[in-house]
C-alpha cells in the first residue's frame, strides 16, 4: 500500500501548454512526485502526467525524482501516451506501462 499525499498548490495549464508547480523538497530516498491532471469543470480524470523520455528525471517507476531544483523546462505527456521505446532499460522489472500509470 502506497502512502501518497498532495503537495503544493494546484496549477493550471496556459494556452501555450505550459505550467508551473512549486513543491516542497521532501525526503528523496525511495520517494517520487506524481502529477495528476483533472478537468476543473467536469472532474474528469486525465490521469498522471510524466516527463517525456527524460529518464534522468524519473524514477524507475515513472514518477518525477525529488530534487532541489529542476531543469528550466520539462516536457510532459499523459501517462499511457508514451512510446514503448521510452521505457527504460529496466523494462523487465518495471511494471507494464498501464499498471505504472495507475500507481
Amino acid at each position, binding site marked *: 500500500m502506497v502512502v501518497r499525499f498532495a503537495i503544493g498548490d494546484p496549477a493550471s495549464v496556459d494556452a501555450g501548454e505550459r505550467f508551473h508547480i512549486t513543491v516542497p*523538497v521532501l525526503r528523496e530516498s525511495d520517494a517520487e512526485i506524481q502529477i495528476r491532471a483533472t478537468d476543473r469543470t467536469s472532474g474528469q480524470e486525465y490521469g498522471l502526467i510524466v516527463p517525456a523520455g527524460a529518464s534522468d528525471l524519473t524514477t524507475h517507476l515513472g514518477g518525477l525524482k525529488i530534487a532541489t531544483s529542476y531543469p528550466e523546462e*520539462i516536457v510532459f505527456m499523459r501517462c499511457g501516451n508514451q512510446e514503448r521505446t521510452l521505457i527504460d532499460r529496466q523494462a523487465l522489472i518495471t511494471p507494464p506501462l498501464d499498471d505504472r500509470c495507475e500507481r
Partner: protein
Amino acid sequence: MLAAGVMGQNPPHYVSIHLPGGVPSEKVYIRYILESEELGGAVTPRPGITDYVISTTRGEHAVALFKALVYAPGCAIQTVDLMPSDQANTRVDFTCEPASSATITGRFGQPERMGEHNVRLQAFYVARWAQTFLGLG
C-alpha cells in the same frame, strides 16, 4: 486544547499530535498505524484545531506500538515511532522544520493540447519508504 479525535471524545488511551501555531490544521496529513494492524489509518483534516487525538486503545489497554508520518505544507515530514503505555497518554509535538521548495516548469507536447481544457494539475508526494516504516503490506 482544541482537539479532533479520530473516535470522537478522547478514548482511554491515545496519542495526541500537537500542532504549533501557524500550521493550518486543515492542511495537515497524518498517516498512522497501530501494533499489528495491516492498514492503519489516516486522520481526517479539520480546521481550527491544535491537536489530533488518535486512539491507541485496544481492549482495556494501550497498544504496544504506534507509528505515524506527519506532514504540513511548508514543513518537512516528521515521523513518530513510540510505545504507548497504560500509565500515561503521549503528546507528540509536531515541529515544523521548514522545507525548501522547488518549482517544476513543464510544457506539454503538441498531441496533448491540455491548454485547451480547463485542466487542474496537482502534485503528490509518493512516500514509498513509508511502506517499510509503517510496516504496510
